């Protein structure tokens, strides 16, 4: 017995190493699940405070480009508003409530960002106190950014589109063919459009937008434009590369979108036994 204890004492450094590595591996595993604990990432209070102070200082350097983006977005919205305005002597008939707006939008500031790893995340300065929930879609005036992962009271972490495990349901605008956008871990400017069948004719320059099918994003938010179409190794699907419309190196403000009918959709999927998203 004494010998065993002596032996264990002799290799105590190795045992400690194994124990601490086990903790680290457990953290890696639990962080990769969709709903991790919010204590050990950048949405926790202390880390969030430090990052938000840092971004308050650095914000001044990007104000010009942020303003430019906002003005351009405003111009687009004004044009759209003009086309929706009813002429003075028109009649208006309210249609079914199913056609009413069922998305609500919120704005937030990005305080932490990464784009060179294979699993990139962002942190924003809004949390559950501001109505942010896990699973909400995130985009900016250029295009899709990602999905909310973890939420603390005042901060939230976002899985970036530049994350090897995030799929965005998308469609090609010219022929309404559906696919999934997935980043392959290489260049942060490009992603792959997957599951487009071989018989579909796709041309370079075709726009790719969100399909609105997985109920996270409303339909029509830009994702990118097709730059390369190859037959690929898969016998059923084309190998399509798209240039992402969002410049991830310059994200400063984002919009979050919540589907107000998500709960109803979820319960429907659950009762019919279908997997969601």
């Amino acid at each position, binding site marked *: 017995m004494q010998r065993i204890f002596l032996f264990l004492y002799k290799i105590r*450094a190795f045992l400690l190493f194994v124990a601490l590595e086990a*903790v680290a591996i457990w*953290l890696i595993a639990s962080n990769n699940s969709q709903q991790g604990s919010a204590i*050990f990432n950048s949405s926790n209070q202390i880390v969030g405070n430090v*990052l938000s102070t840092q971004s308050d200082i650095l914000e001044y350097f990007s104000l010009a480009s942020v303003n430019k983006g906002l003005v351009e977005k405003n111009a687009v919205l004004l044009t759209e508003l003009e086309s929706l305005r009813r002429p003075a002597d028109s009649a208006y008939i309210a249609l079914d409530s199913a056609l009413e707006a069922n998305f609500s939008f919120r704005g937030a500031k990005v305080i932490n960002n990464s784009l060179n*790893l*294979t699993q990139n995340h962002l942190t924003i300065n809004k949390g559950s106190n501001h109505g942010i929930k896990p699973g909400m879609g995130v985009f900016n005036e250029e295009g899709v950014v990602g999905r909310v992962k973890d939420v603390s009271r005042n901060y939230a972490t976002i899985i970036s589109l530049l994350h090897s495990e995030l799929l965005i349901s998308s469609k090609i605008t010219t022929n309404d063919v559906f696919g999934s956008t997935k980043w392959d871990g290489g260049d942060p400017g490009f992603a792959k459009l997957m599951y487009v069948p071989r018989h579909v004719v796709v041309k370079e320059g075709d726009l790719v937008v969100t399909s609105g099918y997985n109920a996270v994003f409303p339909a029509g938010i830009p994702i990118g434009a097709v730059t390369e179409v190859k037959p690929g190794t898969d016998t059923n699907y084309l190998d399509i590369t798209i240039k992402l419309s969002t410049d991830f190196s310059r994200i400063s403000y984002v919009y979050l979108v919540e589907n107000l009918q998500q709960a109803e959709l979820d319960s429907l999927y659950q009762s019919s036994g279908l997997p969601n998203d």
Partner: protein
Amino acid sequence: MTSIRIISLAVAGILYFLAQVLILKNLVLFGVAFCFLYLMFIILLPMEVKTIPSLLISFVLGLGVDMFYDTMGIHTSALLAVGFVRSRWLRMLVSSGTFDEDMQPTVVNMGLQWFLSYSLPLVLIHHVVFFYVESLGTGLFFDSLQKIIASVIFVTIMSIIVQLLFYRRRRGI
């Protein structure tokens, strides 16, 4: 170790940590060369620091960096590997009694050639563990290899510059 020495080491550790998460985190050259300078704190601990204290310091420092990078556990596991082999590797390179135990294995104390042969394998271990765990399941072997090689070179050059600027030569022995 005197208590003043311990305090100055703790301050150095905090400075390495803050520099890493506030400044160097955003410094990535050409999208491949990362600057993980914080691991130099573990590599440059005084020679007398044994495996168990260096493991505990690695764990705390790794967790802190992970929180800011949102890579929970990956920096920690890579840094623990360095903390575990550091002391043994040092024993192999330095025969006991030749140097003051309190001394740090820096460029200014030990010379460039010795430092490179000491630090390069340790930095390589850290980067191999970090980038391969980080890209697990994506099949990006050569992209990760490119990042590892570029980052090892970048970190080594940065750390030599930092040591020449901020580390004083120790007199005696």
